[in-house]
């Protein structure tokens, strides 16, 4: 009996899509996308998306929903911008702390008070965005130059790589990560297997908040100072990255770190590639919409077939 893994094709799909896109854009941008400078920019542009995506992966894995990232990143950035004028390390810690607190709050209301996560996170999205305006008011802060070191390619990519390693470790090599994925498969089964489901769920949301806090630090470094619209629409971009990378909406064991990484690249490649191909304005968004639908459609189809072949 062969011990063939069933989902080989599923593992490959995101990469195939990425490859197809690379080929298309290599042609359409006449190579402009693959100059060293372009590639470096591409990676830099993906960093915050990827970091926050790595956090949201936990929430996606448990099958929950967190749409606070955008507003939360905005709030973290606002507070951090102010704090950075006093002490940069303090500011960074503050951003992470705010993210952690917000995520934990969402987790507690969802897990302990049993309010659907979409409801809580929508409420928090509205509330946190309002807090951003309240914190910033009419002030604007320009970051001290030393802070901008975080926007340096080497620094930010190093941090990103470390985070990817750490999250891969937590997500794929610890009981917490496996537990989150199992909750997405069948929460009751996990509960009856003696796992503290509530703690895991709160942990997942806390991870999401925490990573959003870290992402906010880098967004801020990119933007260079405070703005009341930081993070607008961020949560939707993260979601798109996850889904286009093949993370299932319902969560479970098909959630993988590499899917977030590849998904974020695909999203950014699409945006930058289209722009570098001189397709601009609203058309890029339309193309992105169709590509999202098409890619997910292909993925759903292939997975279905793979599962059917596996006798599932």
């Amino acid at each position, binding site marked *: 009996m062969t011990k063939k893994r*069933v989902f080989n094709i599923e593992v490959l799909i995101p990469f195939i899509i990425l490859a197809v896109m690379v080929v298309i854009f290599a042609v359409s941008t006449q190579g402009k996308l693959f100059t060293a400078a372009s590639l470096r920019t591409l990676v830099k542009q993906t960093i915050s998306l990827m970091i926050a995506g790595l956090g949201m992966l936990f929430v996606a894995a448990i099958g929950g929903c967190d749409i606070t990232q955008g507003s939360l990143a905005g709030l973290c950035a606002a507070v951090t911008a102010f704090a950075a004028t006093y002490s940069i390390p303090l500011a960074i810690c503050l951003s992470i702390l705010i993210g952690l607190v917000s995520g934990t709050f969402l987790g507690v209301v969802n897990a302990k008070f049993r309010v659907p996560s979409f409801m809580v996170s929508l409420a928090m999205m509205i509330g946190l965005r309002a807090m951003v305006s309240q914190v910033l008011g009419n002030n604007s802060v320009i970051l001290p130059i030393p802070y901008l070191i975080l926007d340096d390619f080497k620094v930010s990519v190093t941090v990103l790589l470390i985070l990817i390693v750490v999250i891969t470790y937590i997500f794929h090599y*610890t*009981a917490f990560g496996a537990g989150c994925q199992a909750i997405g498969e069948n929460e009751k089964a*996990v509960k009856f*297997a003696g796992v503290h489901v509530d703690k895991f769920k709160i942990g997942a949301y806390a991870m999401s908040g925490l990573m959003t806090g870290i992402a906010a630090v880098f967004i801020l470094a990119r933007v260079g100072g405070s703005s009341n619209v930081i993070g607008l629409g961020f949560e939707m971009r993260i979601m798109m990255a996850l889904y286009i990378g093949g993370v299932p909406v319902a969560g479970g064991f098909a959630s993988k770190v590499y899917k977030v990484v590849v998904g974020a690249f695909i999203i950014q490649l699409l945006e930058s590639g289209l722009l570098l191909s001189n397709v601009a304005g609203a058309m890029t968004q339309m193309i992105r919409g169709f590509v999202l639908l098409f890619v997910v459609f292909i993925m759903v189809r292939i997975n279905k077939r793979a599962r059917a072949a*596996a006798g599932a």
Partner: protein
Amino acid sequence: MAEELLKITNLNKSFGMTHANNNICLTLEKGEIRCLAGENGSGKSTLTSIISGMQPFDDGSMVLNGKEYKPADPLEANARKVAMVVQELGVITALTGSMNIYLGQTDQFRRNGMVSTRAMGKAAEAIFDKWHIPKVPLGIPCAHLTMEQRKMVELARALDADPDLLILDEITQSLSHDTRKVIYELKDRFKQEGRSMIIISHDLEETVEISDSITILRDGEVVETVRSDGFTVDDLKQKMVGRKMEGDYYRTDTAPSYEESVLLDVKDLSLADGQLKNISLQLHKGEILGVCGLSDAGIHPLGSAIWGISDSKRSGLVKDGVTGKELKHPKDMIACGGSYLSKNRDEEGLMMEAEIRNNMYLPSMQELTGKMKFTSPAAVDRLAQKAYDDFDVKATSIHQPIGRLSGGNKQKINLGRWLVKDLNYIILDCPTRGVDVGVKAYIYSVLRKKKEEGVGILLITDELTEAIGMADRILVLKNGELAAEIERGEAFTESNIIEVMV
């Protein structure tokens, strides 16, 4: 000889590797009340769901009223005047009673495009009147109805088809004494009017009492169809279990055998909603402690409450006998080498879409966590492979999703993933529910082996034979209270236990 209503010949149905129905032949006369008897997994529910059009059959034929009968869906069955009250389907709680009764057929009450609630309500009332079923409020969402009232709604839904053949799957077990009587009267009326019924009931006395004839199924096959007159419960049991009583299916010794030391100590366990009242029990080393009771006696909540999961607040004390630690959360019990298997394997046990490996891993998450919280995927694979091999799971590999593996294989995974661990005691809630005989025998042998190793087993079961066949002691629960404790020996008979249960 009365007229034939339904004739089934050589009907087959299989799910994957399981033969749920194997060459079923069955003839039902008009005005006949037929009970189906058989243990769990014997194919009763599959057969009735095929007759009622809920699932197709593989091959064979059915003839209803002299015409070929092959319903594509329940509506077509209804049109041929066959209706069924399904055991686990339930009602849509957001909709009113009358909407539930006419679900999918509401168009008949259309007045100017709108469904006339009044007409529908009247029609629904009329069903209750016609068949003398206890009235329930039909105009409010079913969320506000009791379980019994909801069952009545389901019954009315079936009766609306004015059925010549009504199938009742486990309807009486959730009904009170008074309402059961209503069902019996309904049965008599059916008989008078030349209509037929197929009834599945776990209550064997009831089965013999109310039926004209009984078809006994075992392992998906018809063993025999007998007239009920002069047939006794004991006869029935013999037929149901059949050869299974022979060999080493169950224990053969007649005396309890366990050690003195207590592994699990439960004192005054109660649930705030009254499902359990002051239950105390002690599980000893090497003991199989059976727990029996009627379905609402609280035997299933007992298992999960001891494990530490309950819908309402738990009071009392659950203590580990060895360490003396109080056990509040499943995690505490796991730490003391305890485990629990839910009765609802598919909902509360396994992750159906996930690989076998990941299911195997779930109970051992803590044990496999090493330094720095590291869990080695290779170690998980090893553990899964060990359980997979030890329990002889039949699948392509540990990476196959559980999906539609047979019930037996699923249960092997479900049980095996716990038993690969070094356990002190294990709480099993209906461990042989819905598995075929081979697996059943296998599970019993495993349990006996574990017993010999000194593991304490709390065996909660719906099947008396199982408890009698396996247990050292049996606790009988009634209305959430401990009604009796019987030791293996002379008194270890079904009649003794049933006497206490009812």
